[in-house]
């Protein structure tokens, strides 16, 4: 992990008004595992005070990308950045997805902005020669992000795009295809989705890694602000920033 002065290259808008921030950051770009995150100081003053965590969306030689939506003060400031502005980034942080292992097909399950880590993930899986199916869900069409993903299966709660229902229901409908391959599931998205996914994986005995979220102050293990309940050790919490953000779905209580 490093604190690296980095520079805004450009802001790209993709589907549904989602922003991609392209950042020149050769030092960080050289050592990333998909699923890791950055902790970014979006301003050089006390507004906002804390850094903001973002998944690493993609890496392209000396550039890294993050994907975001304007939500509050921090993302509003990020969206206003201009080419050449300096950016104070801490990263890469945490543990990413285990891309190696005994599977031939990677199943992505992404809800809304949970799509963020998967462009880089997809690249790496492809270069490892694995098959990929990407299940993407959202409340309605305006939540669907397919950027950088392949073989997409789409669901929306309101049926405005793709299958009408949750992404886990869609997954369940395609369970046959899944069971025909040596699969491993990789997921990121809102808590209710992850909860349903866990049930689904336990029932079907699927191996699954999930990227989790938490409020964070430091992002590197010193504040204890980001606990997540462990399935095995009841006497202490795991830390999302340091032990995660990616966990095996069996290891954490969601």
């Amino acid at each position, binding site marked *: 992990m490093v604190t690296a002065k980095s520079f805004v290259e450009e802001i790209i808008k993709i589907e549904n008004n989602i922003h991609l921030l392209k950042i020149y950051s050769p030092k960080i770009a050289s050592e990333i595992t998909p699923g890791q995150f950055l902790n970014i100081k979006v301003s050089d003053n006390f507004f906002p005070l804390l850094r903001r965590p973002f998944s690493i969306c993609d890496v392209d030689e000396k550039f890294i990308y993050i994907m975001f939506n304007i939500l509050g003060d921090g993302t509003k400031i990020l969206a206003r950045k201009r080419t050449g502005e300096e950016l104070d980034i801490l990263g890469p942080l945490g543990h990413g997805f285990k891309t190696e292992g005994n599977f031939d097909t990677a199943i992505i399950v992404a809800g809304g902005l949970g799509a963020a880590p998967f462009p880089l993930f997809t690249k790496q899986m492809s270069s490892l020669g694995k098959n990929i199916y990407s299940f993407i869900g959202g409340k309605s069409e305006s939540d669907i992000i397919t950027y950088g993903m392949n073989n997409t299966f789409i669901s929306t709660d309101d049926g405005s795009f793709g299958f009408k229902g949750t992404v886990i229901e869609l997954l369940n409908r395609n369970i046959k295809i899944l069971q025909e391959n040596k699969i491993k599931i990789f997921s990121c998205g809102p808590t209710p989705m992850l909860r349903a996914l866990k049930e689904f994986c336990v029932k079907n005995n699927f191996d699954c890694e999930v990227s989790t979220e938490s409020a964070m*102050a430091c992002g590197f293990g010193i504040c204890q602000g980001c*606990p997540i309940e462990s399935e095995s050790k009841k006497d202490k919490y795991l830390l999302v920033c340091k032990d995660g953000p990616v966990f095996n779905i069996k290891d954490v209580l969601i």
Partner: protein
Amino acid sequence: MNDIDLSVSIGPIKLRNPILLASGTVGYGNEMSEHIDLNKIGGIVTKSLSLKPRKGNPPQRIVETPAGMLNAIGLANVGVEVFLKEKIPFLKQFDVPLICNIAASSVDEYVECTKILTQEDFISAFEINVSCPNVKDGGLQFGNDISSVGKITAKVKAVTKKPVIIKLSPNVSYISEFAKVVKEEGGDAVSAINTLVGTSFNIITRRPKIYNVTGGLSGPAIKPVALAKVLEIKQKVEIPIIGIGGISNWQDVVEFMIAGSSAIQLGTINFVNPTAAIQIIDGLEQYCLHYGLKNISQLTGSYILK
């Protein structure tokens, strides 16, 4: 620059410079050592240690506020045994004064913890946290009660030869009365301040944002309050003060020393800028050079009122 002396004393404690890292904002040192050279800072104060490990509060533990943050970690820590076995060995690689912060839910527990830890030579001093606002047992029950603070000071002093610092609560009418009893009972110094009690609600769910309902406010927002508490103690009681609260740059450190601090602790700023300590030490050196201060300790309590 070599003739600038940044060293300070907090009563019997000698430090190479006045920059300590505050309890709960540096863990047990290992993560911070990836960011800064621990051999360069004044010292480290550990996360509050209790006799047994504590799991801490369920999430959400943290929420950002204007120029500050609320936390209710709930004193999550590994306990004194694990600390001695697993955490201290790492720190021993460094030439850095280690101050052990102790939290407890009874006077006896403070004493027990101290008795165990005092046997470890690497520990330079104790900081007794009588002011954590985020636990139901102990915490402010002690911190807001003068006689408890006095009793804890006396009993802890009785079982250790190492210096004892009492970390005071700002959530009281007159903090100097607490500093006074610490002095009377033989305490070597006081730390001021711990966090201010605060809260925050989600306006849609109408629930507190923090699981514990209230949390402790820290960060730049509280700096003026912390400074006033330091000044109050300095004016009323003769006891060394470690200033804490919202410090984020060397200018803030100078301000806290002028107001009466012998040394200071960096808290929340470590989360935002983990290299702050080093930048601040450089800044202080420049300041001393520029204003012809030979010893930074001359700053302590050097305020001019009127």
